Structure formats: C-alpha cells, structure tokens
C-alpha cells in the first residue's frame, strides 16, 4: 500500500498570499507611490489631477490589457506604438476626407485587427520570432504613418461625437477612463473565466502540451496579436479624439510604457504567469510616477531616468522577493 507523502496543510490565508504575491506586491508599490506624491505635492491628490491622469492614461491601460495576453503566450508586440500612430493618422485623414466618425472608427478597428492578424500570421504560422516580426512592424507601420501624413499633423474638424469620446465625461468621469476600465474588466473575465483565456495560459505555459490535448495552438498565438491590434486601434482613436488631430508622431515610446506596465504587474516574459489585475495596477503606477514627477517640478529630462530606475527596481524586487521560489511561511 503506497501513499503520497503529504505536507502539513497550510492555512488558507498563507495559501492565498502565496498565490497572489505578485499582485499584492505591485498593489503595495502603487499605494506607496500614491502616498509619496500625496505627501510631497499639493496638487497630486486632487480630483482634477487624478481624473486627468486616468484620461491621459486610458490608451496605455487598454493596450496593456491586450499586451498581457500577448506576453502570457511568451510573445511580445513591439509595434503597438506604431499601430497607434498609424490608426491615429489614418482616422484623421479619413475624417478630413468626409467620412463620419462612426464609419471611420469601425474601419479603424478592422484595420487594427488586420495589422495584428498579419503580424500574428508571421509569428505563429511562419514561426518567425515575435521580437523580429514586431520590430519590423514597428518600423514599417510608423513609416507608413509618416508617409501618408508627410509628417504633418492633420486636424479633425466638426466631429462633436468623436471629441466626446476623448474629452467628454459621464457622471464626472472621463469617457476614455470608463472605456479603459471596461476593457480591463472584459480582459480580466476572459483571462480567468473563459476557455479562450485558459487556452492562452496553456499555450504560454507549455505549447507542446496544449497542442497534444488538441488545442488550436497556432490560432491562439495568432489571435493574441489580433487582439493587440484592435486594442491599439481603440487607443489610437481615443488619442485622436482627445487631441483633435491625427499625427504620425503620436504614441512615441508608447510600447515601452505598455510593456513596462505589464512586466511591473508581475506578468512573466517567459509566458504562462500573469494577471490583468496586476497589469492594471502596473499601468496606473507608471502613469502616476510620470504625473507625480512633473508635479514635483523635477526636470523633464530627469523624469525619464527616474521612471526607468523605478521600473527596474520594482521588477527586481518582484523577481527576488516574489519570484517562483518565493513562499511565505518558509524560512531560509
């Protein structure tokens, strides 16, 4: 008679802490940042400022949710900033040529999906590394945006409904922020509670195992890039609606902000491990650091350095303290 040896059962609280260590760590870091800027500036903790942060940060949050799915499959999408710029410019050009904003928006969502699908096809069906495909995409798509706008910013005129998307409020809350929260909630539910979400995690965790149990592994990998493209289209439209113009120079450095938000949120670049909640907190942390440093009158040149250092430190702490080997209640 053989039995498996069993360890003493841990308390539920400790188990829960262990399972959620990554999210808890970023949540603590987020609260610490909030406290820091609240203490050191008069303006940070005001409704007006916080609403501004979420309005401006909505595109980052939306794309970071999609990027979480991409990174969960152990992939990466470096082209998100370029897709946002392309959609941003294209939308302005279409509206300048007499299309109404609803038609334009639908076409732009489709365009984002097509661009994402194209990248996904090269990655999953042609087996080219995601890093290479999206690096090329980053250059090509920004190039197209520059080419069609010839570098000019294109104004959007007389589209009240469209401007409301970027500038309006609903019950005092900016519309972009509401959209971003909706996207995050949908992403959260898909990741945790649907078969598709389970398939994304499985493919990222063990591609071969997913294939052997009959999951359409290639399609799943391809689909996350399509979702990323659609999220970028939403972000591009929101930026155009807020600024009232389309430009090929929109969203420069956007991909770094998005990837930093996802990684800060505890999602592993090796795939399989991550959470939308962590990503949301990561994105908010990045946004308030940027905002808070400006309010502290730190030189804008220093802001970039400080942001980078904070991200590096946070991720370092995350992997050292809360990495795979971490277990509460275990000494040594």
């Amino acid at each position, binding site marked *: 008679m053989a039995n498996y040896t069993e360890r003493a059962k841990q308390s539920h609280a400790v188990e829960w802490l262990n399972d959620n260590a990554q999210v808890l760590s970023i949540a603590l870091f987020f609260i610490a940042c909030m406290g820091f800027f609240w203490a050191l500036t008069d303006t940070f903790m005001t409704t007006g400022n916080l609403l501004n942060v979420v309005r401006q940060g909505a595109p980052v949050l939306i794309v970071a949710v999609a990027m979480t799915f991409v990174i969960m499959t152990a992939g990466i999408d470096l082209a998100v900033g370029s897709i946002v710029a392309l959609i941003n410019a294209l939308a302005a050009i279409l509206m300048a040529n007499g299309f109404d904003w609803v038609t334009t928006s639908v076409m732009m969502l489709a365009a984002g999906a097509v661009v994402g699908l194209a990248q996904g096809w090269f990655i999953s069906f042609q087996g080219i590394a995601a890093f290479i495909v999206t690096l090329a995409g980053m250059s090509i798509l920004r190039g197209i945006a520059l080419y069609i706008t010839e570098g000019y910013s294109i104004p959007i005129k007389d589209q009240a409904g469209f401007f409301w998307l970027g500038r309006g409020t609903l019950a005092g809350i900016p519309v972009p922020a509401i959209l971003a929260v909706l996207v995050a909630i949908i992403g959260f539910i898909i990741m945790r509670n649907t078969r598709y979400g389970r398939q994304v995690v499985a493919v990222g965790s063990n591609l071969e195992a*997913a294939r052997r149990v009959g999951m359409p592994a290639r399609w799943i990998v391809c689909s996350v890039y399509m979702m990323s493209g659609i999220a970028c289209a939403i972000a591009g439209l929101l930026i155009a609606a807020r600024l009232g113009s389309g430009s090929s120079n929109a969203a420069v450095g956007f991909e770094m902000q998005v990837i930093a938000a996802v990684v800060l949120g505890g999602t592993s670049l090796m795939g399989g491990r991550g959470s939308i909640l962590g990503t949301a907190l990561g994105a908010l942390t990045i946004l308030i650091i940027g905002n808070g440093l400006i309010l502290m009158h730190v030189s804008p040149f220093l802001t970039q350095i400080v942001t980078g250092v904070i991200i590096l430190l946070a991720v370092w702490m995350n992997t050292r303290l809360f990495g795979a080997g971490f277990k509460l209640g275990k000494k040594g």
Partner: protein
Amino acid sequence: MSETAQRGGAIPPNSATPLVSLRDIRLTFGSHQALRGVDLDVMPGECLALLGDNAAGKSTLSKVISGTYIPDSGTITVQGEEVRFTGPNDARSRNIEMVFQDLALCDHIDVVGNLFLGRELNKGPFLDQKAMLARAQEMLEALEIRIPRLTARVEKLSGGQRQAIAIARAASFQPKVLIMDEPTSALAVAEVEAVLSLINRVKAKGVGVVLITHRLQDVFRVCDRAAIMYEGTKVAERMIADTNLEEIVNLITGGH
C-alpha cells in the same frame, strides 16, 4: 526464418478480442527505418510491457498507437474495426490515451485545470470551475490519488504528484487503452510504488495498459506480458509468468 518468427512469434491470442491490434506496421523517417513490420495486440485488463534498448522503436510504436505518428504501411484495428488515425485527436476519440514521458502539464495552471486541459467544462460562455473542481475530486479519489490542494498550481507539486496528475488525466476519461512512456523513470521510491499501484487499479477496470520502461523490476511487478523490440522489430513476446529477468535481459540485448 518464417514470416511469423521474424515478427517475434506472437503468443496465441486468448478468447477476448484485442482492444488494439497492429499488423505489419512500418514507418521510415528519411533513411532511418524506425519500424520494420511490427505486430502487436493489446488485450483488455492486461498490462503489456514494451521493452527494448534506446532507439529500439518503443516510443515510436507507442506514438503510432496514440495517433502522433502515422505509419507508412500496416493496419491498426481498434476493437475489431480497422481505423486510420490522422492525429492524436482521432486516437483520443477512440479512447486511446497516452501519458507522455515529459508529462505535458501546464505548470502555471492549477491541478483542476490540468486534469481538464483541452476538455474544459463550460457553463454558458464561462468555465464551470465549480463543476470541474467537483469532478476532479471524484477523479482523483477513484484512483486513490491524494493531492492536498486542487487549486494549487502544478509547478508547486512534487515529481510524483505531477506524475499522478498526468496519469489521472489520461485514466479518467474512460480510456480503453492507456499508454505510458517511462512513467516511473524520474521518481523517488515511494512515488514509484504509488504509480505501480495506480497501474494495477486502472488494469482492474478492464483498461489495456501499455507500459514502456527501462525498469525491469517494475515489469515483473505489474505486467502480464512483455513485447521486446530490437532495431525496429519485435523480436519476442513472453508471458511474464513464464519468463525471468535473465531471459528478458538477453532478449533486449540480442544476446540469445
């Protein structure tokens, strides 16, 4: 040498129809003759050991049964009906399950999720976590597998527990044939015992088990019959009751 002798002189079949029978299976990878005409029967409720040195063709043959490889020629008959597998899903739909040497578990998914991997239960558009947890508990209880917490991620479990989950996954969806490739190779002593008693319990339910292993002591513990492969052919078949370790070793090394 007659045709039958070349294929290892099959033991006269008993009264039951075999769950799976392979006849004259040939498979070539480029210029490498992986399988050179193999016959094999898997009977219900028995454990068949597939033995042989490395590169003898054991794993290749098991992958033919599980639909991962498609043979160049030869026939596969499942319960009297000739079939042609085009992939692992075909074999799965005929209740042939395989436990892979590398287990094929997803480390970042919990025990329940791994047991239901690729067969998730849905409630409307969402996963039915409650039903899956309840079914998983029943599945593991039926096989007397004890895992402290079913919502723990698989990466936190020991080698033996992971092995047990891989076997439970294959054994729980009413398989008729269960193929296990080296299920005990990386396990501690207590864990090996658990896997062996698990094999006996599965066998008792009438499942035909194919066990690929290098651990001959395991063969004498749980198997009823052994087929010995050498250089892509089946060179011998013995009832375990009528043979001994020495003979098996000689057959494997070709020193007879």
